[in-house]
């Protein structure tokens, strides 16, 4: 119990910042909190480990966009988008989707309301272990995951937890979902939806009250399954991204955008891709497992990551040229997808080579038990 109290009392910038919305609830929209770095409003991406990644802002700064490139035919980026959309709908934000129709709403993960007690009990034991580390710094990194169970019902939550096994209930949805379908790509390959979509979002932002948050979601940009061939021309897609950037800057405390791009079709070595990266504020690259030749697949090892994640640029941080006090390192991160906790991003570390031969025989039995405890 004393461990819990210490974590709350620490007064680290993130807990101080998250107590600010309690005072400023009238001015800040729900789901928005000021960044501990420079106070700009940030909102949650729905994935807590992604929030931590964003250059010290502990959230997705409003008025910026994030481009997620994915190699291969998997759709981890789609999962990130779904969590982003679900978080927005639960918080009461307006979500604008380009590419799919209303049926996409049925694929959103459900709100995780049950099972909190077992998770809190697990966190207690984790806290016991981690007391040996400097607890002050521990809370700094994990503030969003710690404070949500302890503050639960009283405060507005910044980031909700979702369960991929469930579907998002209409009762939990407080925001609105606007969808724009691309239209028949085969019948009219010359028409692109970009200009109409941006005009629609701009009109929606004008007509809603000034403290509503809007989230723009573009899954599978330029994917041939969705977009006509004309969309791949530089003037179409780059004008879209330029217009998106202009829209974000025009309403700097109201809109964020998340775009995914299949990078196998538009490799990072091409100029078009590089321009798309330059026009976005943040760029992340997901490299799923089967694309890595060096990564040894050891069965039963704890490191069950499903791929690598690289951050090539981060919102606000790179536009200024830098700015975080020395803790952005271009290290590789790994991600793992699970139904209960979504996409979890952790630092990637290859286990030392010598261990596998000794460890292969004995830990099989104990690790089976460990897995049972995890769930």
């Amino acid at each position, binding site marked *: 119990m004393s461990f819990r109290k210490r974590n709350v009392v620490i007064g680290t910038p993130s807990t101080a910042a998250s107590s600010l919305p309690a005072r400023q609830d009238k001015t800040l929209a729900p789901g928005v909190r000021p960044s501990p770095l420079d106070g*700009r409003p940030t909102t949650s991406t729905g994935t807590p480990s992604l929030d931590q990644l964003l250059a010290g802002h502990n959230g997705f700064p409003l008025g910026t966009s994030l481009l997620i490139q994915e190699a291969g035919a998997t759709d981890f980026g789609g999962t990130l988008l779904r969590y982003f959309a679900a978080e927005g709908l639960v918080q009461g934000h307006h979500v604008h989707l380009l590419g799919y129709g209303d049926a996409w709403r049925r694929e959103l993960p459900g709100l995780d309301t049950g099972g909190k007690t077992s998770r809190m009990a697990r966190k207690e034991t984790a806290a016991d272990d981690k007391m040996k580390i400097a607890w002050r710094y521990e809370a700094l990194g994990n503030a969003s995951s710690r404070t949500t169970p302890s503050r639960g019902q009283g405060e507005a939550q910044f980031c909700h937890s979702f369960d991929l096994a469930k579907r998002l209930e209409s009762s939990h949805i407080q925001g609105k979902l606007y969808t724009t379908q691309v239209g028949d790509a085969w019948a009219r390959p010359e028409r692109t939806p970009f200009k109409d979509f941006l005009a629609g979002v701009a009109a929606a932002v004008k007509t809603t009250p000034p403290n509503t948050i809007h989230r723009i979601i573009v899954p599978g940009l330029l994917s041939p399954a969705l977009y006509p061939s004309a969309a791949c021309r530089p003037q179409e897609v780059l004008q879209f991204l330029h217009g998106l950037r202009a829209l974000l800057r*025009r309403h700097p405390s109201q809109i964020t955008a998340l775009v995914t791009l299949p990078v196998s079709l538009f490799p990072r070595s091409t100029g078009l891709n*590089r321009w798309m990266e330059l026009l976005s504020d943040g760029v992340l690259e997901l490299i799923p497992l089967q694309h890595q030749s060096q990564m040894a697949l050891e069965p039963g090892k704890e490191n069950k990551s499903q791929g690598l994640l690289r951050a090539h640029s981060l919102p606000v941080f790179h536009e200024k040229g830098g700015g975080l006090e020395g803790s952005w390192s271009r290290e590789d991160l790994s991600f793992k997808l699970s139904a209960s906790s979504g996409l979890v991003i952790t630092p990637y570390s290859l286990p030392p080579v010598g261990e596998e031969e000794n460890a292969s025989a004995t830990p099989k039995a104990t690790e089976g038990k460990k897995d049972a405890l995890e769930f």
Partner: protein
Amino acid sequence: MSTTKIPPLLEPYLSLPPEASLILLTSVLGASSNWLVLRHLYSYLRASAGEKGADVGVVLVSFMGDGAFWREGAGRLVSFTHPDNNPGLCGGGSSRLIMSTKGLDLDAMGRNGRFAFVDGLSGLFTGRAADAAGVDRGSRTLRSSETDHVRSEVEAALADLRTGTKVLVIDQLDVLLAASGEDVTSTGLAAMLLSLRERVRATLLTLSADDPLLHAQATTLEREHAALVLGQAHAAGRVMSLRMLDTGTARDVSGVVRITGEGHGEGKEEEEEEEGREYLYFVAGDGSVKVFERGT
């Protein structure tokens, strides 16, 4: 305690350039040139009325950043250790208020005729006007991407300046080239740049010099971009290139700046200047920049 706004190692390169000169700043993904543009602006505009060098006006044309971004950046060009520098408590608002009264006030300079901003972000391809809040600051907005329209707007902004010496700064002109398709070509832009350069004392350009954009040259987009950047690099008197560290990342270095061309002032020709100099730079959380040599 106020730290210097212009890093001392860069001082010789940021002074007012000679007549009819072109300075090129290049950037890559992960090493943007915004901080260097702001320092150039500060160096040209810092003399207050009556001092020597106060007759310099600047027109800033930006295709990637809007007016608010540049105004805020210029306002923050002073950095000093503020007592409650803990942003979590004061939310950054109060410390910013104090900073902006001492930094470059681009609004006031716009009213005095020393600064003009041409917004190439808000309505370049959509053709819509900027918000009313931007209009009264005296900034212009580009409504179309045609070369003639861009040139006439920039010339009008130059005419707005009421100073004797004028400097033109164009940020990320390559966005216009990349996103406009076949209408805008690198030769057309080069011709536009030449005609604009005739009207000002000096021109500062920023362009992207990413590997995929310069070396691939397989698609029209890449070829046009390479033609523009390489052509301007050859025409420029000084080129300052920013890139990330070659060996990875470091806690106290944000990137490398390489300077080639004439540096220390007119008339000095030193052997080593031809090979270029490299410095490391670090952008801190409050926007201040430290430039230092390798090994220090």
